[in-house]
């Protein structure tokens, strides 16, 4: 049940009415209802996946309670944390990385002339496993660190782990932020509800109008890259980054909007990353819930031992390689992550200088703007080019793409079914303009600041809905991040 399907629309409408008119009278009833609908939502893909999410949730719920026992020694608490990490990463590792490690070991030993007879398994990757595993892990780590008290409300905890708006592709919420929201009474708030709807609309526009149209061109270029001029691979990879952003941030917007309609606040997952002025800023604006998760649970603990410049570099490389591995069980993702780490090194060394300095307040307005623009474009292009690794299925494939690169634009795709580049550029330009002007707002359609008259606002909403109707359809394209 994808967010861009009619099925989800109908599902959400039913949930919305039952939630506010029937189950919201009692917190326990409401949470039980949310748990049931979340399990229905997740089981829609494959009911067998429910077993995994239940095992992860119940393990962490019990371990959290056990960790809080008064007479428990520090060593035992640590052991309980290891159990939690072992169970969660064990499930994730088996379902997501088993085949990757088997193949990598076999290849590595084959390099030394040793043939290992290890066989890979036909494992289906459960949807969203990387997201909810990290979410539930953050709970036990926070309880272990005594940042929060464990809950003894099993239903609320199960509902927190499986909360359907953010279950399959985040934002990866922290227990101390989201769990308390399950324990409070809710009252419908018109302003928040309307804003939730607007954010859903903006998410759908980004996904259906921009990302899905980009993907047609991107797929055509990359699937047939030997028959197009190398210059179009540059166009392809830039469009791919835009597709990726609109797809994933669109999903996040729909998730946040849906949650808001049910009275929940989810964290911001994207903060207009295309307007970042350097690489470090890019990662503070892109997939915030994941990058902050790695920062809090891996990077900072690693740095605590040694805050030297070289340890920061080493930590960056390690963390970003892990970020890459989190995305996919393939070496191209690991290398992609490693390169992200590498690109941050100049920031560590030259922070405050060159492209990494903050704009001076007394600088002339025009000069300042030009400088910012150059920095934004440079960062965007650098980010785009790393996406050759992200788009490919393997390291070898990404290398083939890179080798084909040049600045020749003479031969484009001959297939007439491919949308015009000019049309997609108009959509992208419009999207970027709106996001540029809305940078300080939560999302592209957050017009409270502008005080636009109602007919204008409704005109915009209606026009965008018409665009979605024209470019959407029952045969929707899956969200890109579902594969992670």
């Amino acid at each position, binding site marked *: 049940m994808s967010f861009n399907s009619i099925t989800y629309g109908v599902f959400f409408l039913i949930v919305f009415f039952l939630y506010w008119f029937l189950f919201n009278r009692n917190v326990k009833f409401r949470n039980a209802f949310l748990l049931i609908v979340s399990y229905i939502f997740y089981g829609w893909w494959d009911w067998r996946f429910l077993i995994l999410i239940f095992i992860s949730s119940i393990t962490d719920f019990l371990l959290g309670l056990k960790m809080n026992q008064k007479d428990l020694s520090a060593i035992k608490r640590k052991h309980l944390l290891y159990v939690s990490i072992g169970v969660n990463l064990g499930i994730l590792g088996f379902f997501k990385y088993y085949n990757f490690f088997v193949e990598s070991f076999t290849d590595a030993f084959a390099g030394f002339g040793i043939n290992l007879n290890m066989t890979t398994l036909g494992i289906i990757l459960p949807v969203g496993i990387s997201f909810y595993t990290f979410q539930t892990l953050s709970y036990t780590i926070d309880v272990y660190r005594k940042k929060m008290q464990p809950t003894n409300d099993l239903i609320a905890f199960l509902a927190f782990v499986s909360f359907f708006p953010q279950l399959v592709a985040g934002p990866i919420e922290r227990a101390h932020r989201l769990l308390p929201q399950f324990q409070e009474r809710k009252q*419908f708030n018109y302003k928040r509800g*309307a804003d939730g709807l607007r954010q859903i609309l903006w998410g759908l526009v980004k996904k259906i109008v921009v990302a899905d149209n980009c993907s047609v061109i991107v797929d055509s270029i990359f699937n047939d890259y030997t028959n197009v001029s190398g210059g179009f691979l540059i166009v392809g990879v830039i469009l791919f980054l835009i597709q990726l952003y609109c797809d994933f941030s669109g999903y996040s917007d729909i998730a946040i909007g849906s949650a808001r309609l049910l009275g929940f606040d989810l964290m911001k997952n994207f903060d207009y990353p295309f307007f970042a002025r350097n690489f470090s800023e890019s990662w503070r604006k892109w997939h915030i819930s994941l990058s902050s998760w790695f920062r809090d649970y891996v990077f900072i603990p690693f740095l605590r031992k040694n805050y030297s410049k070289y340890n920061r570099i080493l930590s960056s490389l390690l963390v970003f390689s892990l970020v890459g591995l989190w995305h996919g069980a393939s070496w191209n993702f690991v290398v992609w992550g490693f390169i992200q780490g590498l690109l941050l090194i100049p920031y560590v060394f030259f922070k405050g200088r060159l492209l990494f300095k903050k704009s001076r307040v007394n600088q002339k307005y025009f000069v300042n703007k030009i400088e910012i623009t150059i920095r934004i474009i440079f960062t965007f292009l650098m980010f785009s080019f790393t996406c050759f690794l992200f788009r490919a299925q393997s390291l070898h494939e990404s290398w083939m793409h890179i080798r084909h690169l040049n600045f020749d634009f003479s031969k484009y795709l001959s297939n007439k079914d491919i949308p015009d580049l000019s049309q997609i550029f108009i959509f992208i330009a419009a999207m970027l303009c709106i996001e540029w002007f809305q940078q300080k707002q939560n999302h592209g359609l957050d017009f409270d600041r502008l005080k636009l008259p109602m007919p204008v606002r409704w005109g915009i*909403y*209606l026009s965008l*809905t018409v665009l979605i*109707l*024209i*470019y959407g*359809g*029952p045969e929707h394209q899956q969200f890109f991040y579902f594969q992670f």
Partner: protein
Amino acid sequence: MKTFLLKLSFFLSLVFTFIAYVVFNIDGSFDPYYVRFTTGQKQSLIIGASRTAQGIKPEVLNTKLQGHQFFNFAFNGNISPYGPTYLNAIKKKLNPKTTNGIFILSVGPGHFSSKHHIKDDSLRFIELNNYLAKTRFVNLKPNIFYLLDNYSNFIRTYFTDRNRESRFLHDNGWLEAKTNFTQKQLEKRHRNVLRQMKSQRNKYQFSNTRWQYFLKTIQFLKNHGEVYLVRLPVERKVGEIENNFWPEYDSLISDISSKYNTPYLNMTLNENDYIFIDGSHLHQESAPEVSRLIGDWIFDNENKTSDHGPL
């Protein structure tokens, strides 16, 4: 909550109004099939494939054969008119109370061929998975089921279909191909058709299943009126390829014609009288002439039937 729901309902009603506007404005320029599924049940049908869809104009027949309202229920897209899917659609389209209808069945060697070298080739007929099989209701306006079952997004098609200028499907089922080709373009199209036919002819073989469904269609329609078999004109070289594919075709159809008392008109013999857009399909200017000849021929036969029939 009340205000929220009221505003949301109003907004959704605006959205549905837009969808309704699109649905009710879909006409013959939308695609070459939709309109045929939006009229009521009919009493006199024209059955065939793309040549028939473009080549027979119902209004010309209506003028000659007073009292009959013909409907062109021929389809294109490489579908033979004889098979389980098409017969099923005919049964739905025909008014069951009809007793004196006139049915024109287009025949040609290609209609009885199949690509599949298996005994029951009907299991692999192309129409099993296309719009004709997917369309459960053939007499509904607007036919929302057709739009939803056959398009991933019909609104997108409505706004962005680029072929709109080249064809128009009239309410009586006639598909007008709005061609404005130069002589050079016509020749090129003709060469392409010949090349395609030559390359394909060895892949096809006679399909007994299609033949049996042809007979079933005749038998079914005979219960509701008179059946006429027509082989529409094609350019000479196209006709030669077809005749080579099945040399005894014409005599076999003549036998069927006698056996079932269904008059047969072979129009391929006068191909020089007409203009074709590709050697296989009639130009829109020749369609009225061909339709007039068919009308005259049926008129003569009808009068013969009434002269010598029950008396």
